[in-house]
């Protein structure tokens, strides 16, 4: 028998790994001290992190919640024996002004004879999550809830702006009308004709009939909420409203643009490419200026087109162009075989898109889509340049008050924290979604 011949007669059982491989010690060794260079980096970083934390906590941990002005805060610092520029945070400003940072000038009932209407944006915000639940957690909530999701886009503006209930109802009827026309014509003629006529019918309804219809019904059944004007909107509520509208609309519009960009029809393709490239080539601020000043030039004289509505349109268009490109990336990543598989089974274009292509393309694009969402949400603060009172612009208003003149960090820190909570939430949700949609390798 030769030396290299070997036959294992008994299989080895697995043994526990050495202590240096598992547990806290093992983890620290592998991740923090895996070489002299890494060890130095770890120590230096730890030093800075601790230093910053100590400074930050020292600054933030002060009993200034009940102060009613900056001078009062200074007195408190002196009693504590602190002095200097950054003696501590003056939290009194947040304690006093947080309602304003959240709601802007939305009717708060402070003045005699006015009502506190702030429950309406709060309710709209809470209902937003009810409406989102069937979309975000489709496997955990009753499927019937999706009907509420369909109603919500009409409910939200009514709650925020008030007015007669028949305005949102007639807006919704426009969609119903368009759909009925489409269904009727798609059966008897072709899908495309049905689609075009349906859209036209809906627009005719909205532009010419809807207002007559709603005012007629309002005079019969006067069911209304007290109206609130757009210029009273402000604060975080304004950011969320713009963000939700832009996010909610930019996804479907982005999908349509991305599909249009891939279309075989030259006109459709050119229009989509032109739109996307134009919007992406222009800063959002420019678009907002156009919304606030130039747009009036194109409007027939006398029309007063709500400023927030104009901002909605511009921010939505801006977000849609980016969304279209993100989704196009997802579409491009799909192998051609998926289209062929769908085609070979006899699915038509829309069925293939809806059932096969989009679910996969959107899944691939989730990180990009959520990044765009987060970007749009943060960009809503730009509306301050056209005079809307988003949270950042409100800080100027607050500092204009002699009591709080000179405060920066407390206000910006508070706003940053609120934005962070929302953006971080979106980011975590996207990770959850990606994990949930994982179906085996590839």
């Amino acid at each position, binding site marked *: 028998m030769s030396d290299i011949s070997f036959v294992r007669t008994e299989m080895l059982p697995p043994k526990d790994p050495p202590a240096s491989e598992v547990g806290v010690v093992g983890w620290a060794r592998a991740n923090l001290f895996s070489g002299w260079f890494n060890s130095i980096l770890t120590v230096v970083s730890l030093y800075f992190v601790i230093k910053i934390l100590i400074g930050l906590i020292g600054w933030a941990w002060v009993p200034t919640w009940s102060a009613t002005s900056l001078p009062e805060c200074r007195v408190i610092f002196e009693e504590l024996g602190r002095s200097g520029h950054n003696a501590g945070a003056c939290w009194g400003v947040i304690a006093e002004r947080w309602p304003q940072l959240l709601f802007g000038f939305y009717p708060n009932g402070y003045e005699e004879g006015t009502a506190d209407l702030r429950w309406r944006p709060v309710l709209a915000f809470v209902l937003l999550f009810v409406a989102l639940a069937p979309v975000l957690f489709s496997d955990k909530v009753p499927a019937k809830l999706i009907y509420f999701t369909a109603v919500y886009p009409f409910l939200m503006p009514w709650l925020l702006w008030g007015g007669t209930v028949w305005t949102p109802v007639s807006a919704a009827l426009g969609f119903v009308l368009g759909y009925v026309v489409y269904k009727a014509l798609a059966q008897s003629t072709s899908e495309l004709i049905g689609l075009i006529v349906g859209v036209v019918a809906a627009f005719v309804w909205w532009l010419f009939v809807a207002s007559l219809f709603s005012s007629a019904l309002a005079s019969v059944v006067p069911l209304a909420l007290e109206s609130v004007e757009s210029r009273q909107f402000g604060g975080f509520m304004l950011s969320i409203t713009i963000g939700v509208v832009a996010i909610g609309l930019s996804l479907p519009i982005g999908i349509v643009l991305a599909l249009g960009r891939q279309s075989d029809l030259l006109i459709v393709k050119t229009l989509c490419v032109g739109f996307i490239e134009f919007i992406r080539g222009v800063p959002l601020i420019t678009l907002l200026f156009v919304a606030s000043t130039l747009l009036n030039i194109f409007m027939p004289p006398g029309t007063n087109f709500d400023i927030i509505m104009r901002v909605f349109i511009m921010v939505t268009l801006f977000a849609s162009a980016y969304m279209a490109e993100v989704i196009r990336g997802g579409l491009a990543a799909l192998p051609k*075989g998926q289209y*062929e*598989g769908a085609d*070979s089974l006899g699915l*038509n274009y829309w069925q293939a898109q809806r059932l096969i292509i989009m679910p*996969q393309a959107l*899944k691939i694009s989730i990180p990009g889509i959520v990044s765009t969402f987060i970007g749009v949400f943060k960009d809503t603060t730009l509306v301050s340049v056209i005079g809307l009172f988003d949270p950042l612009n409100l800080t100027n208003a607050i500092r204009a008050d002699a009591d709080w003149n000179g405060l920066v960090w407390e206000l910006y820190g508070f706003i940053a924290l609120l934005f962070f909570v929302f953006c971080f939430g979106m980011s975590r949700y996207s990770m959850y979604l990606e994990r949930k949609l994982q*179906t*085996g390798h590839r």
Partner: protein
Amino acid sequence: MSELALDREIDRSKMKVSDEVAIQITDMNKWYGAFHVLRDINLTVNQGERIVIAGPSGSGKSTLIRCLNALEEHQAGKILVDGTELSNDLKNIDKIRSEVGMVFQHFNLFPHLTILENCTLAPIWVRKTPKKEAEERAMHFLEKVKIPDQALKYPGQLSGGQQQRVAIARSLCMMPRIMLFDEPTSALDPEMIKEVLDTMIELAEEGMTMLCVTHEMGFARQVANRVIFMDAGQIVEQNEPEEFFNNPQSERTKLFLSQILGH
């Protein structure tokens, strides 16, 4: 010569070629830009025929069978499938596609859907079959391809051979009258090739009309009733398998056979 390692006799009782015409191609031509890939193709396929299309790489085999369900457009000539002409009319195309099943080299299963959903999708949306019935039929065909226990898994969790059998089941769920195969075994390991070929043989035994692009000459010999040899976009030779393999006429066919059969 690679014989099929089939552990049973092939049952030929139902393998009958009828007089009914399934596919008729007349003077069909196709170009990719300036490149003439298919030249004057004339071919009549009767119901129940099992045709193997062979030929060197780039000869246009895939293009030919992809023209039959309009995955590729032909520019001249006429293709009749089950009496319906393939034209630009989308309604015709969708009708033909739902009657003609196709199996691809790379399976083209839908990775975001379970095996069962892959099989029920088209019946539900195209044929408007009720969900329950579609699922029953899907299970029936999954049993036929011997993977009913994988129904709730995703394609990514299956082996290549299993995926290809699912792809066959998925096509069968549409109750096609004709099946097209484009190199269904080329992306598979040898032991998986056998399970897929077994499935295809069973299909042939049931009298399905089949057009297969394949390099499995054993399959061609034992199952096909006609072998077509293509080169440079043309049908160069066609014959019964025995004649085709033992007595090829054209020089190109001889060369091709000597290369792939390795003598």
